[in-house]
């Protein structure tokens, strides 16, 4: 129920105020959300300008993203296609040639094509898992940090439990329980990794909650959800972003480990799958560095890019925050 306020001032102040009115009416009045997004966007672009880490990280991401998008154009073969020579012999274990840039695998598959297509699943797994992790983490952190009390207790005990579950073993068990699919790996990651971001965001929220501007929101009549999502949430968004960029890395590493141990899907090419294939096919003994070095390096680069970005953002936006 809107309720009017009676203007009541002295004649002189009224006059001055009246003179201000046109300025207020004409001054740009961007809607809060757009203004906030604009500000977040500014911060987003400001960081790579100020931090070389963020710059390098974003460039690496960009390269991999482009590779993933144009993967179909970049590959020469179906990644899982078994290639034969004319004499019905497999084109196996070939060294790098102009036709097979990174050679072929023991089962006669083109390694370069696998590497390129692997970018897709790496980014898909990495991004979806990271978004799930951070979305859960942020929400839990916000709610636990702001409401405190038994809600906080409950959520943090849940976090304790999640942190008490050995991560990789759990994902392995889950993958063998729910079936070898990347979605299950993502699920496993989402189920166990959220407490890290939740804890940090919670403590951030708890300190924000004590900040005077939150009290100001309360005293000016803002409801608790409005305080939480309009006043507090934007202040932790950058932190969420930071965690997302790290979580992408963890997710890719985890997926690779799970695939490597043989619990990944056999019909999706991922870098972990490639490494598993190479390991199981004795590429190490054969000295096929062209086979097992590139996927590993790709993982290193993508994950490192995430670390770089988070490091860059941390340096610029949270100089005091400890990792």
């Amino acid at each position, binding site marked *: 129920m809107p309720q009017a306020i009676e203007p009541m001032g002295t004649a002189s102040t009224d006059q001055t105020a009246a003179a201000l009115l046109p300025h207020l009416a004409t001054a740009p009045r961007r809607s809060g959300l757009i203004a906030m997004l604009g500000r977040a966007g500014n911060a987003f672009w400001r960081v790579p300008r100020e931090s070389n880490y963020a710059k390098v990280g974003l460039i690496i991401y960009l390269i991999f993203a482009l590779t993933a998008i144009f993967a179909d154009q970049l590959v020469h073969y179906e990644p899982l296609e078994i290639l034969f020579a004319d004499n019905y012999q497999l084109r196996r274990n070939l060294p790098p040639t102009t036709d097979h840039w990174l050679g072929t695998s023991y089962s006669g598959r083109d390694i370069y094509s696998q590497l390129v297509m692997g970018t897709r699943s790496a980014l898909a797994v990495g991004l979806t898992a990271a978004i799930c992790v951070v979305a859960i983490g942020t929400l839990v952190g916000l709610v636990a940090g702001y409401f405190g009390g038994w809600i906080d207790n409950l959520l943090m005990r849940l976090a304790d439990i999640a942190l008490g579950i050995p991560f990789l073993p759990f994902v392995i068990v889950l993958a063998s329980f729910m079936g070898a699919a990347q979605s299950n790996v993502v699920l496993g990651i989402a189920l166990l990794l959220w407490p890290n971001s939740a804890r940090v965001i919670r403590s951030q929220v708890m300190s924000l909650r004590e900040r005077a501007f939150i009290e100001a929101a309360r005293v000016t009549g803002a409801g608790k959800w409005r305080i939480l999502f309009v006043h507090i949430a934007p202040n932790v968004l950058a932190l969420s972003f930071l965690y997302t960029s790290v979580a992408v890395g963890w997710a890719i590493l985890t997926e690779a480990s799970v695939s490597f141990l043989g619990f990944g899907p056999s019909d999706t090419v991922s870098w972990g799958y490639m490494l598993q294939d190479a390991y199981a096919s004795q590429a190490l*003994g054969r000295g096929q560095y062209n086979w097992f070095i590139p996927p590993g390096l790709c993982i290193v680069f993508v994950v490192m890019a995430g670390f770089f970005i988070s490091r860059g953002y941390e340096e610029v936006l949270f100089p005091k925050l400890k990792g």
Partner: protein
Amino acid sequence: MSTTRRQFLGTSASAALIASLAGVPKAALAQSVSPVRALTLYSRAQAANPQQYQAAELIAQAWGDLGLDVTVSGLPQNQLSDVVWYNRDSWDVSMWQMVGRPERSDPDDFVSNLFHSANIESGYNFVGYSNPEYDRVAEAQRLVVDRDARQALIYEAQDIVNADQPYVFLVYPTKSYAYNTAVFDDTTLVNQPGLGIKNFLSFIAVEPKGDQKDLIMNVSNELNAINPYYISGAGDSWMTELIWDRIMRIDADGLPTPWAAESVTWNDEGTLATIVIRDDLSFHDGMPVRVEDMIFSLESPQRAGVAPMYKPFVDPIVAMEKLDDRTFTVELAQPNAAFETSTLSKVNIVPEHIWAPLLDALVEGETAESVLEDSRVGSGPFKFDRWNQSEVVLSAIPDHFAAAKVDRVIMRVVLNVEASLGMLRSGELNFLTDYTGDPQLLKDAADADDSIAVVDVTDIGFQFLGFNCRRAPFDDPAVRRALSFAINRRLIAGAAYNGFGRPANSHVSPALPFWYNAATEELPVGIDVATAMLEDAGYSIVDGQLHYPAGMTEQY
């Protein structure tokens, strides 16, 4: 029934011919025929069995040319068993394998069990193949004691299977074994058909050349037990063979010969064996091996719930009798051609004084399989020393009648195939008994290193693809033949098994030369042949998709 089917197929095939002559477009014809559903070809997961998985993919590619939409699904062992073995009605095609074991050096196990219709429900015949003619032949060969007569029957069984193609046989894998020639005198190794140089006879006969008197071999799986009443996997049965003697053993020619017995003689009907045991045998704890121990060893698995694994081996026995301190008889209900191989050469001779109390103490639901008997006392040429998680150590008994030339046999668990190869090269292993990796790498290693020698052997077991013969279109032998002929076995052997496999077309391996029917090798192969066969049978390929003969529809 098969006649009517063939007539029916003939009519539909001619209908298709007439239709095409009349200029009716194929699309119009398609309206009256229904397509074959998309199929899932099951296999072990690629990681677990890359060769099998790859063969499956090659087969899927080939069948694609016949208008079948085939997806390969790789499953872990337990899930694959669940789908194919325990739920027999719900799958279409699956990769599978039968492994060679010493007792399978008699063809009986495969010939009687794999395709007999009695085994469709829960036995070995998981593909559901049923042919009364085959049942008759399979039963008959068991009862024939005359080897040549039995050979004819075994040949006939192979011909029937060859005609009906319930399996698409792919390869008899070639197994490679390697040993260190610097350590062992290679002339003393025994190469047994189907088993190669890794066999009991080799282990006791092989002579060390120098100071290294340990035979160090590898196994690529974890062991779960070393127990005379239990077979858990390949590795532990190699050990049980060495620790526990048997009444007979399979000789280098693949045929059973008396071992712990001085003689095994049969009556004319082939139903009563008289066994005279050796007098120089004793258990590793010093107790002599008595007739009672022999009888106990053959009798105890018959008891309900004692040794489920060994029970089938001793089931044919109806009675046993001790004649004197060295002689006893074993009576069978009917003649059994495989009895010497699969029972007398199989059952471990255990000390009654140790096992009788243990078996008596078993509670309801428990079996001897789960008894942890730490002493592992047998009478074999090696006694058990120790077993930690990564290795089993046996040491030779010098005064055994067939005393081994090596001091110890050490079996090392090496899960990583690459590591096992590395250990062979470094000399940590001197007998590579279990190599599951790329055979080429092993060959290369042998070429590079003079002290490594490789011996190949064709396996008794084989790799195959099973059709679920219960379900259309695989209930039609014509379809099975066509699909089988579409597969180039040489390609499979080369591409999936890296050339280390012999193209197969029978359930009796050429590793058993006496029983192997070489005539089965003649198979027409190729997509054209297969397409022609399918069209003859009334099937059609419309828009790249295989369709049933007119009037037939799917019930799945």
